[in-house]
């Protein structure tokens, strides 16, 4: 006879779970009681939101399912932002929440929350466990749906009495989904029409999204793009999927994308979309998005098709299958010569950033840091101006090398996510870039960093504002800086020291000399190579802005390059 908690943990091990993040509490205590000797490492964060973001970091860095554990009531509700984040960014995540004992459910018992109901619209699948006997099947099915197709978040809510109860356990089970009408016919039939569209196209382009990385088909994608040799750009989650040095690669597209990418996306007459959902940050004004374009959409999730505009050709299926099928068809096809279009789209007059932007100290600073990173390094960006500067300047060919909260835009994501990434990649340099606003949203995770002695390299780009909101207030609200002033920020260096973490403050003036002088170069090198956690606070000009910028509601071709 085994306790429900022991069965639960054995089933997690059967799903290849060896690392979980969580925070204990009343209803989930039986699970914690059984952790010792389970073969699963538990990392205690200092807030449940830290746990769920750390689990996301682990999942995003490895492709494995991230697991977060919390107790009932406030423990469970504190997970909600992370669950929504995982839904938006297609992150495989299983959240395990304790629930009050089954006889009390519905009675407004102490720390009772309807977490199942609360997360219905945020999860891909969820279950309130109704008996100890259900535990193996629920875990098997939950992990199946977290991984299957477009990955996403799953919630398993388990009443505390089922964790304490005992039963004979025959072992973990496998889940086999029941069949439903298949989409596979679409996979087989798209080739001829796609080739025909390409043959008629004069200005084709390719847009790469997160799906390209999630499918694991990076080498197939790169090989296909090399053969197509058409202007190509990526969403923030597609960064790293394409070799940055590829002559046809134009960088990031969208609200803060490069001029070249946005112009090509606006001007093309055939848009090949690989695993991107075309959200509003990528399209600008949907009614003026790619006005001359026919869209061919490679996508695993049919729910993402036609959201902005009807596509000419949907190719539904796993990119790991559809890209090779497309490439095979392409080899025997005669395609037009697109040299003239490529010369225009990739021309030097469409430089990736305005030269004035390149002289910005923060951009120089990020360039100095990124230039010192090795191939297996990972950059984790929080949300705001620094995120967009980092995305603009990220230049690695590492598919899982740039991690950020893209869809939900959750401030406070980066530090706990970096914990999950560093634990997944103990030998890699993990660079966590935050703003002064976002860093304070989960600053308590410095305790987790210290406890585990994780050598995360933390950077705060400190402009003493909620910078991105302030930028919008400056540009679109007549400089009414309502409640975005953070000039009374605490001293982050002293806070880090209180957590026994090395910290230093750097003034942006050191970046006015470019390339930086030897002392600064040595200091940056020491910072990145230190075996200890390190914090660097970079004092940034309060009113520095991110450019180019496509204002909300404008077309991609209507980029701003300066204030006036």
């Amino acid at each position, binding site marked *: 006879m085994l306790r429900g908690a022991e069965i639960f943990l054995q089933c997690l091990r059967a799903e290849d779970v060896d690392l979980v993040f969580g925070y204990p509490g009343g209803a989930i205590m039986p699970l914690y009681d059984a952790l010792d000797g389970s073969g699963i490492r538990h990392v205690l964060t200092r807030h449940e939101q830290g746990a769920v973001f750390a689990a996301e970091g682990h999942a995003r860095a490895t492709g494995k399912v991230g697991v977060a554990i919390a107790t009932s009531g406030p423990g469970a509700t504190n997970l909600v932002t992370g669950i929504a984040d995982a839904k938006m960014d297609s992150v495989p995540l299983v959240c395990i929440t304790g629930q009050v004992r089954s006889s009390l459910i519905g009675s407004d018992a102490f720390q009772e929350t309807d977490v*199942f*109901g609360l997360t*219905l*619209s945020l999860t*891909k*699948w*969820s*279950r*309130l466990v109704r008996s100890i006997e259900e535990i193996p099947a629920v875990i098997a099915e939950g992990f199946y*749906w977290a991984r299957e197709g477009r990955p996403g978040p799953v919630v398993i809510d388990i009443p505390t009495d089922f964790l304490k109860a005992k039963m004979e356990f025959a072992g973990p089970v496998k889940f086999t989904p*029941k069949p*439903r*009408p298949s989409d596979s016919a679409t996979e087989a039939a798209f080739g001829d029409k796609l080739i025909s569209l390409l043959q008629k196209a004069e200005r084709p382009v390719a847009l790469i999204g997160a799906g390209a990385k999630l499918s694991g088909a990076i080498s197939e994608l790169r090989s296909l793009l090399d053969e197509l040799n058409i202007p190509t750009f990526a969403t923030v989650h597609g960064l790293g999927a394409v070799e940055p040095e590829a002559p046809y690669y134009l960088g990031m597209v969208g609200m803060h994308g490069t001029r070249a990418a946005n112009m090509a996306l606006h001007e093309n007459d055939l848009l090949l979309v690989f695993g991107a959902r075309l959200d509003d940050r990528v399209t600008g004004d949907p009614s003026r998005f790619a006005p001359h374009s026919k869209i061919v959409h490679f996508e695993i*999730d*049919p*729910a*993402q*098709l*036609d*959201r902005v505009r*009807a596509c000419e050709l949907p190719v539904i299926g796993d990119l790991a299958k559809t890209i090779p099928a497309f490439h095979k068809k392409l080899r025997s096809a005669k395609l037009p010569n697109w040299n003239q279009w490529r010369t225009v789209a990739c021309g030097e007059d469409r430089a990736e950033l305005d030269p004035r932007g390149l002289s910005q100290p923060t951009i120089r600073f990020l360039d100095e840091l990124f230039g010192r990173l090795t191939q297996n390094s990972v950059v984790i960006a929080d949300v705001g101006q620094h995120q967009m500067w980092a995305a603009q300047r990220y230049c690695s060919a590492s598919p899982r090398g740039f991690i950020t909260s893209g869809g939900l835009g959750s401030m406070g994501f980066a530090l706990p996510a970096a914990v999950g990434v560093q634990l997944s990649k103990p030998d890699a340099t993990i660079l966590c870039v935050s703003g002064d606003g976002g860093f304070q949203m989960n600053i308590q995770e410095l305790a987790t960093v210290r406890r585990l002695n994780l050598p995360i390299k933390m950077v705060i780009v400190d402009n003493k504002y909620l910078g991105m909101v302030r930028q919008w207030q400056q540009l679109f609200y007549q400089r009414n800086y309502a409640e975005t002033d953070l000039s009374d920020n605490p001293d982050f260096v002293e806070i880090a020291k209180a957590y026994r973490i090395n910290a230093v403050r750097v003034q942006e003036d050191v970046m006015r000399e470019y390339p930086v002088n030897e002392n600064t170069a040595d200091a940056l090198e020491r910072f990145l190579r230190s075996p200890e956690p390190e914090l660097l606070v970079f004092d940034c000009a309060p009113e520095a802005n991110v450019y180019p910028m496509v204002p909300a509601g404008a077309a991609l071709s209507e980029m701003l390059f300066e204030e006036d």
Partner: protein
Amino acid sequence: MHAFHIHYRNTQGTLMRILTAVSRRGLDVPYVQASADGHGQCASLLLDVNTKQIGQLCRDWYAIVDVMDVRVGVPTAEMLDSATGLPSAHPPVSASAGSKNANAAMA
């Protein structure tokens, strides 16, 4: 008005997921019925939606793990009758409780 028939396995929360795909778009549901249908269940909804919303809803419903099939059709007379038969008062107003009585009850 369009009629939607969503066939699904009657697992925990599936009907609620079907309905939240509607409610998140701020749509009213003048008619809804869920009943057994062969080996599963079928939810029939009457919605006033445009072509784009039809596409989005159908894809959202189909993305729900336990939804088996989604069909769009012409509303039946029963659906339309039920829809027009809804009470118009919103929110409901008590016919008998005047403010004096209500205050007395609260005291």
